[in-house]
C-alpha cells in the first residue's frame, strides 16, 4: 500500500493538520519531510494514499493550509 505526504509552510500547520485528521479517526504520522520534496517546513504528515480524496476536504474545513501533497514512490 503506498503512502502520501502532505507538506506545509510551518510546523504549527503540520501540528494542526495532524490533530484535525486524528480527531476524525485517520491514521496519520508526522515525519521529517522527505528530502526529495522541496518544502517550507521540516515536518510533514504521512498518510495512506488511498485516503487522499477523503483527507482533502477535511483539511480545508479545518482551515489547514497545505503547501503540497505528494505520492511517495
Amino acid at each position, binding site marked *: 500500500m503506498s503512502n502520501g505526504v502532505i507538506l506545509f509552510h510551518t510546523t504549527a500547520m503540520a501540528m494542526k493538520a*495532524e490533530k484535525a485528521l486524528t480527531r476524525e479517526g485517520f491514521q496519520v504520522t508526522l515525519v521529517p519531510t522527505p528530502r526529495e520534496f522541496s518544502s517550507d517546513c521540516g515536518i510533514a504528515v504521512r498518510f495512506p494514499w488511498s485516503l487522499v480524496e477523503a483527507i482533502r476536504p477535511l483539511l480545508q474545513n479545518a482551515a489547514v493550509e497545505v503547501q503540497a501533497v505528494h505520492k511517495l514512490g
Partner: protein
Amino acid sequence: MIYLDNAATSWPKPPEVLKAMSDLLERAGGNPGRSGHRMSIAAARVVYDAREEVAGLFNCHDPLRVVFTSNATYALNQALYGLLKPGDRVVTSSMEHNAVMRPLRDLERKGVKLTVVPCNADGTLNLPAFSKAVTPGTRLVALIHASNVVGTVMPVAEVAQIAHKAGALLLVDAAQSAAVLPIDITAAGIDLLAFTGHKGPLGPTGIGALVIGEKVDTAQMAPLARGGTGSQSDREEQPEFLPDKYESGTPNAVGIAGLEAGLKFVRKTGLTAILEHEKQLTETLIAGLMSIPGVTVYGCRECQKSVAIVSFTVRGKTVSEIGQRLDDEYGILVRVGLHCAPAAHRTIGTFPEGTVRLAPGFFTTMAEIRTTLRAIERLARS
C-alpha cells in the same frame, strides 16, 4: 511567609505546571519544529497544543495567530515597533506601564505622533477625552486592560469601537488581566493582545504571547527579530507566514509547556471561581485598610470591575519603610515604589514616592489577609 506580590509574578504555581515543565525536558526534549525526529515532534506538539489553549482562552479563531514571545513586554514591542512608522498617529492612556510607554516615547523621538490621554485620578479612563483624541486616520490605540498600580479595568470594548471608527487598530496590554478577567478578542474587537505567562496564567517566567486578530494585516507588521524558524530554510529572507514570521530562534518550549499547564489549571478551576475568591480578598483588604487611621487607598471604589491589586500609602511613613518592615517583621512580601509605571503614579498623585502594592492571588487565604491588615495597622500606629 505571606506572598502578596502576585501582580509582579504569581506564586506559588500549581504542581501541574512544574510537572509539565519537567516532563517536557525529560520526554520531549527535542527542538520543536526543527529536526523532525520523534523528540522534536513531541516538543512541537506541546508548543502547538499550547497555541490552541491560548487561542481558546481569548476566543482567537486561528491558533497560528498566537505568537509566543518571552513576555508581555516583548509582545508589546513587537506590535508597536512592527506597526508604527514615522508620521503615524498613536493614542494611549496615562495609566500605561513602561512596557508600552517607553517604546512609545522612543517611537515619538523617531517621528511617530503620540497622544497620551490623561486618566481620572482614580485610574479610570476618561472616555470622552479619549474618544476625542482618537482622530480619523489614527494608526493605533494602545491601552492597558487592568492597571498594575491600582487594578482598575479599562473599557476595552468601548475603546475598540472608538478605535475602529477612526480606522485604528487596538492593542491591549493584558499583563494583569490575562487568565484573570474573561477576554474575548473577537467579541470585544481587540486587534492585538499582549500578555505574559507568569502572572494570571500561573505559568513560569520567560514566556508570553502576542495574539493577532484577524483584522491585522501582518504584511504591514514587521518582525522585531529575524532568524531561523525551521521553515523555508533554503531562503535567506524571513518567512511571511504565521507564526514563523514573528518567532525566530528556538522557542522557550519548557516555558510554553508550563504556560499551557497553568492555563489548563485556570480553565479547570474556572475564571469565575478565581475572580470571586480574589474579589473577596481584595474587598476585605480595601475595607480593612480604609479603617486604619492615616492610610490612603488609591483607585476606584465604585467601579464594578477590578483585578486583585490594592495600592496604599501611610501618612508620615515612606513606602520603602512599610515594605521593608512588612518583610522583616512579619514575613509579608509586597512591592513598593513606582511599579514601572511613572505615568500611572502621576495620574493618581503618588509620583515620585509611589505606593505600597498588595496583590493577593488565587492561593492567598482570607486568614493571610487578616494577618496582613493587623500588621499594617500596627505599622501605621508605630
